[in-house]
């Protein structure tokens, strides 16, 4: 298959397979899977900008069916979601500016790599620790004491409090707005949905009810990745529709299969596997930063 924007001929089946792999993960763990797609595409030889831009539309596709499913069960806090999306759209705008600035400085690759290492390493470590504790407790037969659901004290100090009924919160909308902005920036820079950052942040920083966390996060990811695709189409012009369709074919079907797996497996085990994958990617990226790269020289058109 020839990719008209990437100016590159690829094996279509490999890309579909790649999409299926990340789709499987997204169905199983409720994350977008963009954190895997982008680096793997770059590794395959797709230019980084095209990879990030096209991966965003793949995440959209993968999160659609999930978001619908959660909506039917009433698992989305639309008010909270709207605030997050608003933040996310602001974030993609800021991200686009940042992207252009870093591109002009020639540091975009390094920044993307460092972001990956720090974020994936941090989140992966936390998840691994948490799921290991849970698994150990499960083996002993003692349940882990439930964490008291509370938002961070800093959040309480923000002004303009507002009642989010479904999340069971009375907090300032500024907090989710900022959170949305941060994930929007990351989406634009890294081509990820940001679900693996959003979910823990909603749980532990905002203190949202667990029942609406995944649905609301999917809702936000859906709209933010849509905004990201638009932003890339308008600024970097690097969305490769052929690449996106190939990825989508794989990921939308993979997501469905993954969702069925997820119903059979234990959540702690799933989280441990996800943590291992996330940590694996982070370690690989960290090594990449320190190792002598294959190419010392890179060429960009002016």
């Amino acid at each position, binding site marked *: 298959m020839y990719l008209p924007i990437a100016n590159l001929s690829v094996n279509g089946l490999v890309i579909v397979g790649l999409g299926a792999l990340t789709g499987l993960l997204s169905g199983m763990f409720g994350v977008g899977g963009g954190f895997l797609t982008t680096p793997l595409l770059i590794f395959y030889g797709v230019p980084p900008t095209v990879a990030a831009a096209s991966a965003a539309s793949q995440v959209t*596709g993968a999160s659609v069916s999930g978001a619908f499913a959660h909506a039917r069960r009433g698992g989305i806090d639309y008010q909270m979601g709207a605030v997050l999306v608003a933040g996310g759209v602001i974030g993609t705008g800021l991200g686009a500016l940042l992207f252009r600035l870093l591109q002009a400085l020639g540091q975009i690759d390094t920044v993307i790599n460092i972001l990956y290492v720090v974020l994936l390493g941090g989140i992966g470590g936390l998840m691994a620790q948490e799921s290991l504790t849970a698994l150990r407790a499960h083996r002993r037969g003692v349940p882990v004491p439930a964490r008291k659901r509370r938002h961070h004290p800093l959040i309480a100090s923000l002004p303009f409090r507002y009642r989010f009924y479904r999340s069971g919160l009375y907090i300032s909308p500024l907090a989710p707005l900022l959170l949305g902005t941060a994930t929007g920036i990351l989406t634009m820079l890294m081509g990820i949905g940001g679900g693996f950052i959003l979910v823990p942040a909603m749980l532990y920083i905002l203190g949202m009810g667990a029942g609406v966390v995944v649905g609301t996060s999917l809702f936000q990811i859906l709209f933010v990745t849509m905004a990201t695709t638009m932003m890339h189409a308008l600024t970097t012009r690097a969305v490769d529709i052929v690449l996106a369709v190939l990825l989508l*074919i794989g990921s*939308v079907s993979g997501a469905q299969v993954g969702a069925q797996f997820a119903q059979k497996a234990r959540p702690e085990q799933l989280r441990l596997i996800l943590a291992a994958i996330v940590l694996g990617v982070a370690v690989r990226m960290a090594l990449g930063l320190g190792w002598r790269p294959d190419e010392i020289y890179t060429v960009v058109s002016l």
Partner: protein
Amino acid sequence: MLGGARDPILVPEISQHEIQVRQGFTGADLLLFGAILSPEGSRAAGDYDIVVVLEGPVRSIVVREKQKVAGVWVNAQASEFRSAPSFFAIASNRPIRQIVDDKTAAIYELGLDWLQLSPIGVIEPKLQQRFSAGLVDLMKRQGLYQQNEGGVQIREQVLYQARISLPSSVQTGTYTAETFAVRRGKVVASAVTRVEVTKEGFERFVAVNAQRNGLIYGLFAVLLSVAMGWIAGRLFALV
């Protein structure tokens, strides 16, 4: 020097004057061939050396060099070039160094060592050389710069031919194929033919719209991904 009465007759031709980049494009093989005759019209190839150069559209580029800073490889120094060819292939019947001296090679850009990259701004010659060498090395490994000494075959003292392959990652645009006849270190005849590399059909449509109609293109991409996700959800709900 060129075009005098005692110059040889050089008739170049190319197997394809148009290369269409469309679905399934995995690169193209070009055959550059032709005939060379002495001024009197007899077979003459034995007296001449043939050098064939295929050059793609030039573009302005930034070449960045990674260096280890605080344990991390980052882009440190950069150099800009105004006219780096996006594709450059040279073939000759024997090593260039045996055909012409360095000065002639530099004038006619005969060889990857002699590319006129026109650096922008003031830059140390040594540094510039390092960057050009880095660029050439990188492009060589991507198959976009090629130097094949011995790639030109001369048959029956009159026909010459060279095969040049374009990888799938070539830029679109006008490519020029220039053939040089060299005698005793002097370029005595040269002739140019052109090859157009264009995106056609669907590929052209996509590339043009991504550039010009970003809004509609983006909306289409978004709708497509939503639709595909939704349809997959519906289909699997039936299973």
